[in-house]
């Protein structure tokens, strides 16, 4: 499968905020509430199109639990984008954002594009963090912000794609040296639009296409 660019994403945030559900909604377009909790890291991938260019997103869904952080941090290396997720019904997951951000800034590359997501916005009746607070935090820290729901799929597509669009723009603006893979971007060969949507587990199996 060819692509113009491959972007590596990470999804981070407290346990239970819905990281895996967001990923599954984005790659498989379904919501599975009883999906196993994440140990270590899991993967997903999907093709999207930006500016008529096929772009492959390779997404790393990390475990949220605090005590795994010393290990999950090592997965940040070389990510072009990050989705930093909190749960709008659980205040503490919002309170922990600063520490997640610090972790990301320390272990990922400085030009990483970060999208802040207030998840579970379908549960408005149990809201514990207002939209304004989310916006405010994002503004202070230079993040893009969206509220989303992995359950209803609201804003899920948008969150992943607008992150990609931002990264793409940075490439156009010459922010990255795209030949340096530590930025989490790989240049594909061909650039012919490939099939979009759906999970793609063939990256490592097939090999070749991206090295």
């Amino acid at each position, binding site marked *: 499968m060819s692509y113009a660019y491959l972007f*590596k994403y990470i999804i981070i945030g407290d*346990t*239970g905020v819905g990281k895996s559900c967001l990923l599954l909604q984005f790659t498989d377009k379904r919501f599975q*509430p*009883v*999906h*196993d*909790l994440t*140990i*270590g*890291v*899991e*993967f997903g991938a999907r093709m999207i199109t930006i500016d008529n260019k096929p772009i492959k997103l390779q997404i790393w869904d990390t*475990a949220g*639990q605090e*005590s*795994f952080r*010393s*290990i999950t941090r*090592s*997965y940040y*290396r*070389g990510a072009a984008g990050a989705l930093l997720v909190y749960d709008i019904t659980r205040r503490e997951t919002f309170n922990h954002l600063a520490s997640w951000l610090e972790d990301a800034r320390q272990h990922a590359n400085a030009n990483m594009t970060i999208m802040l997501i207030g998840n579970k916005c379908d549960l408005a009746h149990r809201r514990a963090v207002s939209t304004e607070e989310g916006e405010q935090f994002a503004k202070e820290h230079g993040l893009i912000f969206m509220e989303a729901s992995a359950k209803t799929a609201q804003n899920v597509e948008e969150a992943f794609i607008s992150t990609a669009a931002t990264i793409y723009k940075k490439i156009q603006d010459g922010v990255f040296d795209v030949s340096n893979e530590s930025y989490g971007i790989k240049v594909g060969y061909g650039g012919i639009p490939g099939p979009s949507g759906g999970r793609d*587990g063939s*990256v*490592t*199996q097939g*090999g070749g296409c991206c*090295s």
Partner: protein
Amino acid sequence: MQEAELHDLSDDPDYVASQQQGSGGSENQKCTRKSNGPTEPNGSEVVYSKDNVAIHPTQYASERISGRLQLIKRDLSLFMTWIPYKQSASYGVGQGSRVKLPEKDRNLYTIRAVPLTDVRSIRRHTPTLGWQYIIMVLTSGLAFPPLYFYNGGVREFLATLKQHVFLVRSADDANVFLVNDLQDPLQRSLSSLELPRAVPVANVASSSSSLASVHSDDNSNQRSNADYHDSSFSPTESVGRHRQKVRDPARDLSIQVLEKFSLVTKFARETTSHLLRESQIFDNIGGYEKQQQVHSSPVKNQVGGDPVSQELQDKNQIISDPLEKIACRNGKLCEAAATLVGTFELIDSKEAEQQSLVWGKPRLPPLGHEEWATFLDEEGRIVDSKALRKRIFYGGVEHGLRKEVWKFLLGYNEFHSTYAEREFLETMKRSEYETIKHQWQSISPAQARRFAKFKERKSLIEKDVVRTDRSIPFYDGDENPNVGLLRDILLTFSFYNFDLGYCQGMSDLLSPILFVMEDESEAFWCFVSLMERLGPNFNRDQNGMHSQLLALSKLVEFLDSPLHCYLRQADCLNFFFCFRWILIQFKREFVYEKTMRLWEVLWTHYLSEHFHLYMCVAILKKHRKKIIEERMDFDTLLKFINELSCHITLEATLKDAEALCIIAGENKAACIPPGTPPSLPVEGGLLE
């Protein structure tokens, strides 16, 4: 193919008679009582079962032991068992013999799942007066005492056997049947002596003394178990091959062992020493054959590619890899290990004896009820816990027995406890569990409001149990009470061990235990025992995990230096890609049933307390070629390893890990410092 000839027993009047009477197959269906349908749940099939087959330990009729003889087929391997009847049981013992031997002496004679590949020959005796009996001689030179068929049926036995293994009448003695023999008369004789050249086109899995050609069968066997990673190099093959160069120590030892083996009867000794005498004669030819073997191309009939040249290729690629040379700061070390063959040879000759006992040993069928009973004395003590652990290491446990056996493996029940003691313990523990559980149950809402730690823990556990194995029927569906039990047990545990508390991964470890125990208190205490060992995996500072990852790195350095060199070069030496494997004992890498099988094998701590680390090495080694050739970086490797989930063949990996564990030998200690989980913490040790 000359196969027809090979199988041909038409010159045997008994065989002909049995054919005319109806095939052995239909006959054995009559005898097969136990097997419910053709295949038992765990993939074993009883192909022959005969009651009232007896051993006569002494000349006294009162001491004869009756039992059931069975041939069991598992995968493509055939096993023979002879289990004596329980004394108390009212089986039709026949011949009015009143048995006086104590239970434990009776059990001495039990034949526990001997693979037919370990059988060299069978001598049939059909006296005109008295019972028919057979004597089986093993490739090791040992012989079982005569098995008397009180109800007849020797020919059916041979006919059934013939359908599953190569059985050829000896040229020298019409009553001797050679098992797994070859077409060529010279080789046939060699085979009967189990000289290193001779193991042939057997259609059964390899045994400890079989060679490369049999591995190919073995491979196809594993492949039929739906593994498609299997064709790559495995260490077992390599070492199995190199065994050709050394003498078969089992044979050298056999005479000595025979003298000590009190069960060998006069008849068996005659048969055996006859064969051993022959073996002296053929020794020279055998030696010549062996040399030929080393120089000429490897054995034919390779189904899954030729392991020798594959290994050579493998080696060449690694040596000629420029990256490798740059990568290896410690060039000498790399070179030594790149010559995997060399390393193996060295150890091979040093520890030939050990290896011959274990190498390529086919996995046994899981331990079943009848056999389990033989491990217990009248009061329920496990007399020989090591033998039990060994048995389980090689075959696991039937599901129905897990509830009982796991309690011993986990250390909740002591091997030496009696039925009565265990019953007492259970009652005590049940009330102790209730007491601890009550500690959190009695926390009032008002109290909870001022107990943040408790609330936090409770909500974390509640969030996790609903995300644990919900696709397994035992836990699926809304409001499943078993999910509630998971929660209660974990919460109770977090009070029992408040310092450790709760950490993700624990629910994965508890889930199969509760599934097996089906009892809240027992599952709790088994989990407690497991956490005695695995607790450090969940320490906040992750030191338990780090020490295991470090040990793994050292093991890989020792057992697969080319891979280690590559990983150093790729900056992957932290082995974080194995994190999930180790944290929850491969729980996410296998389907549920296989996880349980693996765990019971690990929990035997039979060859090593750290067998899980050898599992890691075995899997990595299997994919080493791909990892190096594709120049996987950390991300790619992590993704690759993650995606191996559910594509790892358990039985083959266990065999490879077993081999690696033996190769590691004394170096284990250097690689794995004391106190590394899941060892119990050392006194005043590193990890507490």
